[in-house]
């Protein structure tokens, strides 16, 4: 994986000092809170309901054992011994003191980490496929491109005060495991007919109160023009994105209001201009970065294992993913124990996972947008030992992509914008389905919960989505069906009137009953919904 050189290190060190200085000027009264706010946000510091929250960037979700241990240390030293992994492949700490923030950032810098641009109206941490570099179906590892974009977007002088936040995802497979088309810019690395690698650009996707699927704006950008094209997309947005209304300020509104064709035309014009201005980094830079992502030294080994323990076999079936080397798999570490808080990990769990990464995965770890962790390169022969260690630490839940693998935002337990709680709902739903024993029978079923319209829990993209709304001062939940963040991307539709907490849990069960009754061979919930439509579900819910 990527390693900082002296220049990268100097950049994050300079940023820590800059933030120390900003915090000092705030305390001396030289900065008002209004002036300080965007500065602290661009260093990942939010003010939440009870305390400051620090969001640490995990670029494209990749980290090593030493970095994970540093995250555990920060949880112990500055927080309450745990952290929360997010849908942006980042980690959040919920109980940080402003006085400690600069020290926490300095600790991060020692292990080549930072909280730069994890918030604020700037280009955010670049996300990617969590199986990047390990999956069997990629044309290339997308992470070198993501790293090139990370460096380009860090402290970009022109794009630090954009109309609104800006999220970029990069993938390199036909299968979309990063919700690529629900990003402000989605980039898919692919091969053209001539066998050259290039980038397909999608622009104007997003969730929030006005969810949009990003349209394709460029079929093929040659790799030595990647940054230039991104720069053109951003400049058009910076100049013409709406600034009169924060709810209409994301690029999706600009692309929607202009139309994809007109937005594309403007980007192409700017792109032609920028090609002549020359903003691309030298071509060798991509090669330099790519060398850090060379395959580790895979060795051949057994391709099958003893499946006589049914619990182990179930975990292997559900939580491992096919690797490009046939003696290896990628192993998902579920942070979704039944009744647990989705995405939370204690410092002890983080340290254990770090150790397992050293022992079994070439010192490499991933954070998934589904709020789980992942060991990308595990020898099939090592799976029994790995599973035993995970199971003993409460990290062995065999539930990837099942109804127990719920994505939930922090909701009203932490977030000052929330209408309703997400976490207790997720806890109760997993308990309900663990108790009724349906999880396995339901197969792939992605349930996603957001505590408000901002959609941090991706409810629009859930096969089943739940949105917390405020109804006359009480928590109420809207149910929606049929969303997908994958290559068959679609936005979920609301079933009808909302429910209270007990009601929405019962409604989820009702909806799964309808599916089980109607499904044909091998259909997932989503397939059945697409075939039979909303009516039968409505009928059962409200009929």
């Amino acid at each position: 994986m990527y390693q900082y050189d002296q220049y990268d290190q100097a950049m994050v060190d300079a940023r820590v000092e800059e933030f120390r200085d900003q915090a000092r000027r705030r305390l001396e009264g030289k900065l008002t809170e209004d002036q300080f706010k965007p500065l602290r946000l661009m260093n990942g510091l939010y003010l939440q309901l009870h305390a400051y929250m620090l969001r640490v960037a995990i670029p494209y979700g990749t980290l090593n054992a030493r970095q994970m241990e540093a995250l555990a240390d920060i949880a112990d030293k500055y927080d309450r011994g745990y952290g929360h992994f997010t849908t942006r492949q980042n980690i959040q700490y919920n109980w940080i003191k402003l006085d400690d923030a600069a020290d926490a950032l300095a600790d991060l810098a020692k292990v080549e980490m930072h909280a730069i641009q994890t918030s604020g109206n700037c280009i955010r941490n670049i996300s990617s496929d969590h199986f990047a570099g390990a999956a069997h179906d990629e044309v290339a590892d997308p992470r070198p491109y993501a790293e090139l974009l990370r460096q380009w977007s860090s402290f970009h002088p022109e794009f630090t005060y954009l109309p609104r936040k800006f999220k970029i995802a990069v993938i390199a497979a036909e299968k979309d495991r990063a919700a690529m088309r629900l990003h402000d810019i989605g980039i898919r690395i692919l091969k053209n007919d001539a066998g050259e690698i290039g980038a397909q650009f999608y622009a104007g996707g997003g969730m929030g109160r006005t969810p949009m699927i990003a349209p394709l704006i460029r079929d093929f950008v040659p790799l030595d023009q990647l940054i230039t094209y991104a720069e053109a997309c951003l400049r058009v947005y910076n100049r013409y994105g709406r600034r009169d209304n924060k709810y209409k300020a994301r690029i999706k509104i600009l692309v929607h209001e202009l139309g994809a064709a007109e937005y594309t035309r403007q980007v192409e014009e700017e792109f032609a201009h920028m090609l002549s201005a020359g903003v691309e980094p030298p071509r060798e830079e991509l090669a330099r970065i790519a060398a850090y992502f060379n395959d580790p030294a895979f060795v051949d080994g057994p391709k099958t294992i003893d499946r006589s323990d049914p619990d182990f076999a179930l975990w292997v079936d559900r939580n491992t993913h096919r690797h490009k080397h046939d003696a290896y798999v990628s192993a998902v570490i579920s942070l979704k124990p039944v009744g647990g808080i989705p995405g939370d990990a204690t410092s002890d769990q983080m340290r254990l996972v770090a150790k397992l990464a050293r022992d079994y995965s070439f010192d490499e770890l991933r954070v998934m947008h589904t709020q789980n962790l992942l060991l990308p390169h595990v020898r099939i022969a090592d799976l029994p030992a790995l599973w035993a260690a995970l199971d003993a630490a409460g990290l062995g839940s065999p539930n990837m992509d099942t109804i127990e693998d719920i994505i939930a935002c922090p909701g009203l337990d932490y977030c000052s914008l929330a209408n309703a709680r997400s976490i207790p709902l997720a806890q109760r739903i997993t308990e309900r389905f663990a108790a009724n024993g349906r999880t396995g029978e339901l197969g792939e079923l992605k349930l996603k919960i957001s505590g408000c319209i901002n959609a941090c829990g991706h409810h629009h993209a859930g096969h089943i989505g739940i949105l917390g709304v405020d109804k006359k001062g009480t928590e109420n939940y809207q149910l929606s069906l049929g969303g997908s963040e994958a290559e068959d991307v679609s936005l979920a539709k609301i079933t009808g009137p909302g429910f209270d907490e007990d009601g929405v849990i019962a409604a989820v069960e009702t909806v799964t009953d309808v599916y089980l009754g109607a499904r044909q061979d091998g259909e997932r919930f989503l397939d059945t919904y697409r075939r039979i439509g909303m009516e039968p579900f409505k009928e059962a819910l409200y009929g």
Partner: protein
Amino acid sequence: MVDARDLGTSPDEVQFRFRDDEPADHGTITVDACCDQTNATAVRIEPGDDARVLLPFLDRLALIEVNFPGFGDGRGYSSARILREAGYTGELRAVGDVLIDQLSHMRRCGFDSFAPDKRLDEDDAARAFATWEKVYQRAADVRRIIADIRHEA
């Protein structure tokens, strides 16, 4: 109609300047007026203005002010770079809600003079201008970027 004098900042209001020539001492006019008035040498860009309409007149312009009514509106950064990319070499002045923590970015986008509404602390500003010893991406300041330095023979 507003007196032209009222629109611009005077040289006295300029707190930081990175040029050796004499500052232009004449009022600026709006972008619209500039397009009609063939002898104007100073103009002020507001956030909603398209800097590109000025490109035909760059030769005669000695001062372009870019107004930042609020520091959170970043359109002026693009305006500045567009002007420099088009070869403008005159004074490019950031005016309005210009604060310490925006100085280094503004400088990189091509601003070479600064007239903040409120005078800034000199030490804080000096530190801010020096924040980034090296930089990652190309901008209007023609600094060699980190990637260039990495691949020097």
